[in-house]
């Protein structure tokens, strides 16, 4: 391999250079912006994590697996996984191999950054025989170009028929998205053409050499060579210039997001810092649209997380507000998201940004003290007060287990604070947390039992109750069965379990309620379940969804739950229970009720 052009330069590299400088400049600007927007301690934490070998290794591994290989997507949808990783990894390898070529054959050109990209134009086959390395590299280059081209071909098919890939709904690309998309599609076929036209000079692998031969059969001259290289460079330029303003921003952004997440940063602001990295990282794939329980109604499609990101990027304040308030905060979009984008947290942060003319203050409240002298306190919570069958069953089960217990909020107490938290009213929520904590500490109990997952989540995460175990009935009752404190007689009822959002996705409790149901009767599973369970529609998370607008969501969730023909629907949340009971065609029961019916003293 020898230099063919003495200067190592041709004007057609200029578009590429321009695009390259622009996109790198923009990314640098983005990184600085995000870093400046982080709070002082977050920034410190992030920078320290970068030099910590453990997190650094994890960063590299995660970036390689997720950004290049798309492992997570492979697991979810192999075709889509192949499509994405073929383009990303293939392209990556083309760049890497290009550099190796330069290094090996024309090392003095290393400083000319365009060289690896347009390598085939600038070199000619040397006079000597082909080396093994050269042949291998040519073969590899052609192989990866083929891989990328196969990915592009799949992408084109997906564009026309997304349903083949198992996606019901996807986002509509914006104008710039289309420009980016078409320029991306154009890059690799153009490269193929350019290299094809040049292969008789530069040499090539199994793909471009035959192509060159074909071209020369009817295009004898070399006039086509230069225009295709120009076109290739221009396509690259266009792609890189529009990239910051399109969904393709996710390519560089995710490389920023992964280290930030690994550093343990949390969303604290609805626009800035970590959130900015997240929003830029959203590839607009639209997986969250199908996942969203609201999308059962067409009118809600544009209130899903992908549109939240889009509107944050566009700065459409009105829509950001609407989308933030409508969401049920069920967390399913976060669960299915390839980049783990935390839509619910962004929304809560958005809600927290508002200023209110009226700020609630509970410091003057004097709630009744929690009963003292019992090891086990049961906090029924506001919602359970409206579903007395749950609290009654809980009490009965506890009595059967021979426990010394008492209800903490028998005559009504304070709210746990979770509803305020989801509404972004953190200061107010903290007041309630403080007051409730004092009540619990003063009671001298060592276990706090909750039948409401909404309460459970906040008690578990935000309350600091040293020496008090916070436990949900699902966990606690399962233990009672395990330890033999309760004797359970298996019935023949077939139950399906609905995972409440706050218990499953929110608190990671999936197995215990299923085990209880398995002991009480027969468990039938319904799809989707566990981490992808469909919200009942009653969630307190949504601020603006009215009663009538929720009905379809509830019915949709019920439809999926009852597909396996269960006798009864079991759940472990008073709000899910009340919501389902409105429209269900069969019994809806709390696990406590079910257990109470089939258990006796151990």
């Amino acid at each position, binding site marked *: 391999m020898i230099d063919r052009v003495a200067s190592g330069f041709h004007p057609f590299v200029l578009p590429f250079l321009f695009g390259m400088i622009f996109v790198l400049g923009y990314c640098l600007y983005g990184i600085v912006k995000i870093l400046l927007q982080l709070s002082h301690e977050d920034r410190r934490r992030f920078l320290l994590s970068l030099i910590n070998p453990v997190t650094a290794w994890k960063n590299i591994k995660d970036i390689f697996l997720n950004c290049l290989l798309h492992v997570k997507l492979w697991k979810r949808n192999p075709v889509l996984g192949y499509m994405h990783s073929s383009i990303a990894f293939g392209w990556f390898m083309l760049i890497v191999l290009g550099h190796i070529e330069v290094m090996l054959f024309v090392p003095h050109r290393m400083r000319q950054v365009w060289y690896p990209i347009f390598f085939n134009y600038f070199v000619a086959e040397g006079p000597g025989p082909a080396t093994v390395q050269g042949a291998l590299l040519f073969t590899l280059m052609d192989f990866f170009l083929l891989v990328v081209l196969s990915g592009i071909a799949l992408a084109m098919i997906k564009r026309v028929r997304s349903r083949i890939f198992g996606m019901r709904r996807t986002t509509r690309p914006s104008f710039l998205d289309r420009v980016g998309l078409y320029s991306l599609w154009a890059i690799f076929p153009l490269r193929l053409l350019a290299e094809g036209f040049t292969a008789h000079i530069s040499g090539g692998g199994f793909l471009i050499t035959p192509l060159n031969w074909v071209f020369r059969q009817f295009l004898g001259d070399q006039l086509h060579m230069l225009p295709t290289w120009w076109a290739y460079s221009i396509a690259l330029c266009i792609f890189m210039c529009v990239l910051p303003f399109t969904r393709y921003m996710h390519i560089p952004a995710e490389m920023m997001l992964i280290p930030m997440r690994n550093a343990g940063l949390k969303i604290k602001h609805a626009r800035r810092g970590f959130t900015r990295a997240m929003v830029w990282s959203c590839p607009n794939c639209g997986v969250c649209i199908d996942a969203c329980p609201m999308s059962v109604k067409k009118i809600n499609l544009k209130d899903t997380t992908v549109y939240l990101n889009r509107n944050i990027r566009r700065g459409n304040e009105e829509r950001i507000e609407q989308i933030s308030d409508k969401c049920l905060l069920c967390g399913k979009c976060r669960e299915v998201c390839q980049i783990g984008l935390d839509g619910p947290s962004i929304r809560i942060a958005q809600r927290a940004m508002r*200023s*209110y003319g*009226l700020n609630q203050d509970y410091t003057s409240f004097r709630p009744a003290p929690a009963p003292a002298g019992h090891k086990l306190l049961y906090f029924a919570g506001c*919602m359970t*007060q*409206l579903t007395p069958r749950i609290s009654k069953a809980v009490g009965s089960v506890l009595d059967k287990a021979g426990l010394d217990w008492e209800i903490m909020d028998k005559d009504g107490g304070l709210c746990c604070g979770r509803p305020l938290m989801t509404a972004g009213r953190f200061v107010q929520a903290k007041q309630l947390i403080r007051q409730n904590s004092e009540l619990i500490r003063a009671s001298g109990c060592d276990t706090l039992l909750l039948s409401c997952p909404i309460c459970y989540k906040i008690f578990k995460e935000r309350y600091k109750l040293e020496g008090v175990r916070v436990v949900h009935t699902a966990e606690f009752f399962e233990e009672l069965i395990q330890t033999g404190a309760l004797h359970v007689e298996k019935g023949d009822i077939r139950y399906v379990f609905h995972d409440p959002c706050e218990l499953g996705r929110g608190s990671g409790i999936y197995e215990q309620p299923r085990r209880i149901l398995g002991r009480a009767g027969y468990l039938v599973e319904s799809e989707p379940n566990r981490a992808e369970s469909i919200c009942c529609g009653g969630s307190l998370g949504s601020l603006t969804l*009215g009663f009538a607008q929720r009905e379809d969501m509830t019915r949709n969730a019920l439809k999926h739950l009852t597909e396996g023909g269960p006798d009864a629907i079991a759940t472990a949340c008073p709000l899910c229970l009340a919501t389902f009971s409105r429209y269900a065609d069969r019994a809806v029961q709390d696990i406590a009720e079910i257990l109470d019916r089939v258990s006796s003293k151990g």
Partner: protein
Amino acid sequence: MEFGFKLSPSSAVNLDQVDLSLYERLAAIEPDLRICMACGSCSATCTAAPFTGMSVRKVILDLQRGKEKEAAKMLSGCMLCGKCTMVCPRGINTRHLILSLCRIYGTKAKEEGK
């Protein structure tokens, strides 16, 4: 001159002069506000009622009668727990109503330059 007694302000609500701007603003955001039939379920179930006498029914009524201060006082104890939403026979989204109202108080005060 000190008489030892004073004119007491009228407790009557003069619907000719009542300021419904807050009510109308809220109705624009949460139209279901209008369909309250004052059954009182929300008041009876309210977690905050024992502490501040909170009652969504009374809040709506006070707004309809232009009594913004009285409404604000009750609202100051709402914990947003959502029980009222659960029990409302007309399916009014009371939590949104309350949150929106708390915000409007702010925007209105800002407009009036307070």
